[in-house]
């Protein structure tokens, strides 16, 4: 028997789309309007944000969710009545949320209505589930347009040397990638963008999915350093581990020896000085080392290495993490895993299983759910999360595992991951249970700005809705 999610609402199997609208038409808050066909959705949101329709707004009109504008300038939005899941396990019924200039300014229950400006126009979210925007914890979004076309890829670095710590994803990101809106309209609002390749691959950037905003895309450059463990880099696991240890030791001693190195009075270093510099934040515990490892023995090696160098560690992959759950829990090391990974795809993942997340969670390990290394379909994170729930992960823990969990794992929980005053206003209003296949993101806010429900894919869809037009032209 499946595990029933303790989901807060009965999912809509035949969702009748109800649009959230500003209640200005009636002059009352707390009113929702039955929508017409879904095609009308972008239009409806347009009218909802028309400044002319808000004559009594006490603050500057809401910024249009226009990709060309910096969302940090987004004006105030007031969402009331929704069932708010903060992302940390807390639920607020009949919630009140204010967002302004990119951050949450009010978060509370009905009593918080008193804190909204008099005459403010309210977005009615009664009976809707509201969650933080989902956080994609391991991706190359913004670095890859088409996987098999090298000219569209910026995720790796062509070099023989496996230590590429200074390779900084934040410097290569493309905010104009067509992939960004495709994920954003379905509720992905933030991502940890990691370089790939080598043993130490480079610096991870935390982004908010603001399409087209090259200056505003990166929220936290160099939040983490990505590394890939296993046997491949030096021919054996022992050699690989020795290489990692040597690099970290050199990095630790490098600041004191820099001048000697520059006078050429230093022994050869195991990596380029820029790479050793780039490792300083993880040695100072100001940044996280994310280490890909699947085999239980590799995870234990990673824990030992982290203890030796006093690193903040996160494991990515973790197919066999459940086997060493107690040690991971003791070390408070999060595991970033993909719930559907249940195949013995290699001898490193012979123990892969669908209830990995549930087993880790029940052992007290911080669990993060992700589509590992994905770019085009990060939007399916909600489905992966539902599958983790179907295999035993409690619903609210699953939500944390795709919101606050990844923010914590990457050390950016002060600004991201949950609905809290002062944090980035990344938010989704769902049509039903967020993880259910029948549900969709009805409104997505990234840094307080409403994301237009238009993507390259919706434009293609609409172009080919009527095939007869092409026959008229060509027959």
């Amino acid at each position: 028997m499946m595990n029933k999610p303790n989901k807060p609402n009965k999912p809509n199997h035949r969702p009748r789309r109800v649009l959230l609208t500003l209640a200005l038409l009636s002059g009352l808050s707390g009113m929702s309007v039955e929508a017409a066909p879904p095609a009308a959705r972008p239009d409806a949101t347009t009218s909802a944000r028309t400044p002319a329709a808000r004559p009594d707004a006490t603050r500057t009109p809401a910024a249009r969710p226009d990709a060309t504008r910096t969302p940090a300038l987004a004006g105030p939005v007031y969402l009331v009545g929704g069932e708010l899941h903060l992302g940390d396990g807390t639920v607020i019924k009949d919630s009140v949320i204010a967002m302004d200039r990119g951050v949450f300014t009010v978060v509370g229950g009905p009593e918080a209505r008193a804190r909204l400006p008099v005459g403010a126009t309210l977005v009615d979210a009664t009976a809707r589930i509201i969650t933080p925007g989902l956080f994609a914890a391991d991706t190359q979004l913004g670095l890859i347009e088409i996987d098999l076309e090298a000219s569209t890829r910026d995720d790796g670095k062509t070099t023989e040397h496996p230590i590429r710590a200074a390779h900084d994803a934040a410097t290569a990101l493309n905010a104009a990638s067509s992939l960004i809106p495709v994920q954003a309209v379905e509720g992905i609002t933030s991502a940890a963008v990691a370089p790939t390749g080598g043993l130490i691959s480079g610096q991870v950037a935390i982004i908010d999915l603001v399409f087209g905003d090259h200056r505003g895309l990166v929220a936290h450059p160099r939040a983490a350093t990505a590394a890939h463990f296993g046997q491949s880099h030096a021919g054996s696991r022992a050699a690989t581990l020795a290489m990692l240890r040597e690099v970290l030791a050199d990095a630790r001693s490098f600041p004191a020896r820099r001048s000697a190195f520059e006078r050429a009075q230093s022994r050869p270093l195991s990596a380029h000085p820029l790479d050793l510099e780039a490792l300083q934040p993880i040695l100072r515990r100001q940044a996280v080392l994310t280490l890909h490892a699947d085999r239980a023995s590799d995870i234990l090696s990673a824990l030992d290495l982290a203890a030796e160098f006093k690193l903040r560690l996160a494991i990515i992959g973790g197919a066999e993490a459940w086997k060493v759950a107690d040690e991971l829990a003791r070390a408070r090391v999060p595991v970033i895993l993909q719930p559907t990974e249940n195949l013995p795809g290699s001898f490193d993942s012979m123990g892969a299983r669908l209830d990995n997340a549930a087993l880790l969670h029940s052992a007290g390990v911080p669990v993060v759910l992700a589509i590992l290394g994905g770019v085009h379909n990060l939007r399916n994170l909600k489905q992966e999360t539902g599958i983790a729930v179907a295999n035993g992960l409690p619903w609210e823990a699953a939500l944390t595992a795709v919101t606050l969990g990844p923010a914590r794992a990457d050390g950016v929980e002060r600004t991201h991951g949950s609905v809290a005053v002062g944090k980035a206003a990344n938010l989704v209003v769902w049509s039903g249970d967020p993880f259910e296949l029948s549900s969709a993101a009805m409104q997505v806010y990234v840094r307080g700005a409403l994301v237009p429900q238009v993507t390259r894919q919706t434009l293609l869809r609409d172009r080919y809705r009527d095939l007869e037009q092409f026959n008229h032209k060509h027959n």
Partner: protein
Amino acid sequence: MPRVNKRRPALLLLGLSAALGCGKRGPAPATAPPAAAAPATTPPGPSDPEPPGPRRQTLLRGATVMTAAGQTYARADLLVEGSKITAVGVDLPAPAGATIIDLSGKTLTPGIIDTHSHIGVYAAPDLVGHNDGNEATAPNTAGIRAADAYFPQDPQIDRARAGGVTTMQILPGSANLFGGRSVTVRLLPGARSVTDARFPGAPEGLKMACGENPKRVYGGKAGPSTRMGNVAGYRDAFQDAREYQRSWATYDKDLSEWTAKKDAPQPDEPAAKPRSGQPADPADKPDKPDKEPTPPARDFALETLVGVLRGEILVHNHCYRADEMSIMLELAATYGFKIRSFHHATEAYKIADRLAAADTAASVWADWWGFKAEAFDGIRENAAMLTEAGARAIIHSDSAHGIQRLNQEAAKAMYAGRRAGLNVTDDQALRWITANPAWALGVAEKTGTLEPGKLADLVVWSGSPFSVYTVAEQVYIGGELVYARGKLEPRTDFELGYKPEDIAAPQGPR
């Protein structure tokens, strides 16, 4: 968790109680002759699993029954006799002696069918030694067969079965213009060879590939290196096939004439035969029998293509772009064959009208896109737009992960369609993963819907198959229980010995 005994008892429906540890087992399957009347190009199927004697009757009672044949019952019963469904309806009377299984609260659907899998030819783990999916040595390997590489101990088979899959087509990869022949298998546990797994009587398919993959593989070799070269390659091959067909027709004609002549009575037998020892009169020569005609050399690649021209082998064409699919439809019309299904077909929605007119199915993903240039225009509404246009849509996996939840893939495509205002019914979406793939594989007479006369290929779901929280609880193939969640979870040989409990508590024969 029970493991499947090597000498697996036939867990026919009555055997369910055995599987659940509270009853007796069904008898061992009897060996029956191979399926008869298979086309010349189709190898014989495995033995029919039907045991001798009176057929066992089992009544599955009280489930939500989604037939994939246009009808959904909120609560109905399904009667299985032997390997087949014999009745579906509300409040069916239980025949005397029938086993009754209460499925209240569950949902019953046909077994899921995947038109596109490489399980068994790209077995897990991903080892050099398991790399059997692409014979990437020549752009035309139409004569090879996926069946010859299918590894029945691939642990991915077990995962797919646990996801409700009962039938899948195993295809060669897409490196070649003509990758080779496919094989349609059933996901029966305990198969020791592909013959044990073959779907009885299923026609073979031919894997063809458009676009980037053949270009990529052969571009640095002898070609093709362009789409021009690809299409020239198809054309040349089908032209060769026609000529091969013609040379065989000529041979057949010559042979029959020769045979007729040889067997015919010789009315003008010379009255006076030359005496023995005497040289024959040169005038006798025209009356001497001709030399027996020599058959053309057999060519298995051309034989495959002739099978296509005759409609005996079904074409499964990996092809993404609308323009390329259109060219392939034109090429097929020129040579007089049908493309049974395009595969991947991320742009099928752009030519849904043409696919409907050609009666060519499109096996698509719910949402894959962008991993290569020709897949860049994939959209979530693809399947729904095909259905709206009257074309035959199929959701396929091409993935050992995706195959485990094709029901969810269909759900995503269905809900995306509905959100775009396309009216896709639950039954239509279910057909994307049952009846429509059955048609594409040429087995629609036998499986794919819950209708009397069809094989009892069934999935019992914990709830709606379109919910992310639903799991397959039981899977039946031909009336045989092959999976029961938490109770009967067969494992292939490969996985034995990796779990600590395998070693800690050795299992005796059971």
